[in-house]
């Protein structure tokens, strides 16, 4: 049996990688992709806990499903924004949209 910690460590690495991507990337689409990585990490956590610790109720599974659904919605919406940004600024770099600065 694979210990629970393995899944959690995997999830942690995946999340940290996604976070790095979100913080370091300039392209809005790449940031979106990094967010997907983070969401996947969270889903792994949910499902691992559901399978290992909550065999009777498995609420984690339900939440993982919701995470996937919300992620889909989020990507749809975010891509709309990215397209909008691209149309306004002719670029998909997020630091082009900085008119809310001082």
């Amino acid at each position, binding site marked *: 049996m694979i210990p629970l910690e393995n899944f959690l460590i995997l999830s942690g690495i995946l999340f940290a990688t996604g976070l790095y991507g979100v*913080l370091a*990337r*300039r392209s809005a689409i790449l940031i979106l992709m990094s967010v997907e990585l983070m969401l996947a990490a969270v889903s792994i956590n949910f499902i691992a806990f559901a399978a290992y610790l909550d065999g009777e109720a498995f609420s984690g599974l339900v939440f993982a499903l919701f995470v996937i659904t919300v992620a889909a919605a989020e990507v749809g919406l975010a891509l709309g924004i990215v397209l909008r940004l691209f149309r306004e600024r002719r670029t998909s770099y*997020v*630091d082009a949209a*900085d008119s809310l*600065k*001082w």
Partner: protein
Amino acid sequence: MEEVWILPAIPFAVFVVLGLFGRILPRNGDLLAVLGMAAVVVLVGFVLVDFQDAFVDDFFAPVAGANTYAFDWINIGDGFFLIEFSTYVDAITMVMLPVVSFVALMVLVYSIGYMKGEQRYGWYFAALSLFVSAMLLLVVSGNLLQLYLAWEGVGLASYLLIGFYWERQSAAEAAKKAFITTRIGDVGLLIGIILLWRVTGSFDIQEIIHAAEEGAFGETYLTIAMLFLFAGAAGKSAQFPLHVWLPDAMEGPTPVSALIHAATMVVAGVYLVARMLPVYDEVLIARDVVLYTGLLTAFMAATMGLVATDIKRVLAFSTVSQLGFMFVALGVGALTAAMFHLFTHAFFKSLLFLGSGSVIHATEEQEVGKLGGLRKKMPITTLTFAIGSLALAGIPIFAGFWSKDEILHDLEKYGPLWAYAVLAATAGLTAIYTTRLVLLTFFGEPKDQHAYDHAHESPPVMTVPLILLAALATVAGLFVYQDVGQAFGFVGGIGEVVIAHGEPHVFELDVPFAAGATATALAGIAIGFMYWWGDARRAREARGWAPELHSLLERRYYVDELYQAFINYAVLGLSSVVAWFDKRVVNETGVDGGTQLVGFLGHRLKFLQTGRIPNYALGMALGVAALALVALGTS
């Protein structure tokens, strides 16, 4: 008797109606005010009869149904802090009720003539009704907080009426002065009430008296509390050093002076001390303070009255002086003497004020230096005014004689001899300045022909109250006899027994003593005639003997100047320090400094707002990392 709360309710209803609808009522509703007041007088008559039936021997014992609970006014914590709206009727109340209601009725009737054609005619009657309502509530109050409410109510009405001619600068300032000066005393009263409540947990006057008699208070504590209470009484009753507002209060319409500043409101302080006298009996130091304050005020005011040139101010000083007499009586524990003097004084002093109002109405002049010889043109006014003066001076038969004699008698019996000497001298001074006033106003030659030509006798609506009051000023003193008093319902109060030092004894006239007092009064009158008869030449000569003394009196012992100096140097000096602190430290350093600091920081820190999402996300991630570290550390 249980329904005694109706008495203040009627004038209050009148006030509300006149205040709201005065403009659209016929004659601005003055008749409504008069009718309401007449109803109150009739009801007071019923209360008197009722009281006579319920009377039991003991003067202080509350009669049946006397302490009447009406409703819970404030109830916090289910009885922890409970104020009932309650009424209390005993002999002291029974002296106050007829005085207040009757004089108020006389003044209202008189005002119809006096205030004719004035602006704000309806408002005048509304404010007078408000005053009467508050005054009646004050005298029937069963607890101190309710009394305090009424106390402030009469203060408010007084303020409104002194400042009735607010277009005149001096009137507005006099109103302000009266309000602020009495407020100093009122704060003392409130502190006193709170001090008493702290120990007893009750505002009920009778409960407090019982607690004091059973020794629930520490002696020093009770002394301080009662001195604070007396500060309130001194403020309202214009006792030294808070007397300065009353002479200035003469800026109000004359009937107002008669009602508020002679007969009723100013005796509220006397009433309060009389009401709490059993407590004062427990702490003799506080009672002595009452005595000597009254003595000093009586003497000072009488001397100031000697030189005042305004007819109303002479009367105002006389009022202050007579209030001093009442406090002297209370100071030796002579409750009945004080209440009796209050009773007679109300009639003859309101008579004098209304008479002076009649003069002012006729001549539009109130400086005695410009009056004179009016007896030919205003016979009724002259006669009634003379009766009032004789009563004030203390000539036998007239009301003032009996009560003043009673006070002197009790002082001689229970007080120090020198105090008696001073008060007797003051009684002589009273006769002098009263004579002076009468002679200068009604006798001699007219000094201002224009004013004299203008003069005429007042209409009946003004002279009838004068005559009624003059009749009372003549006979009111006779109530001191048991049979007379009983016939008019003053059983046990003024009528039957005289209470001094808590020991009731039946009144008897001490003939030699009274003869001495009468001689003093007559001597005063003789001196008055000597100096002011005819063209008052001797009086002018006398002024030359001691000009410093004259100006000292004329400037009212420089008390006003002293206060002004205090305000100029102490208050304004302190204020300027506070103002400097406020301007420099609070405003420029605190407020402006704060805003400048925020502005500066904002100017610098705004560059943190790069507008770039990754920067914000980095900050957020750092925050999450910090929180995670904390969570990891605590788990």
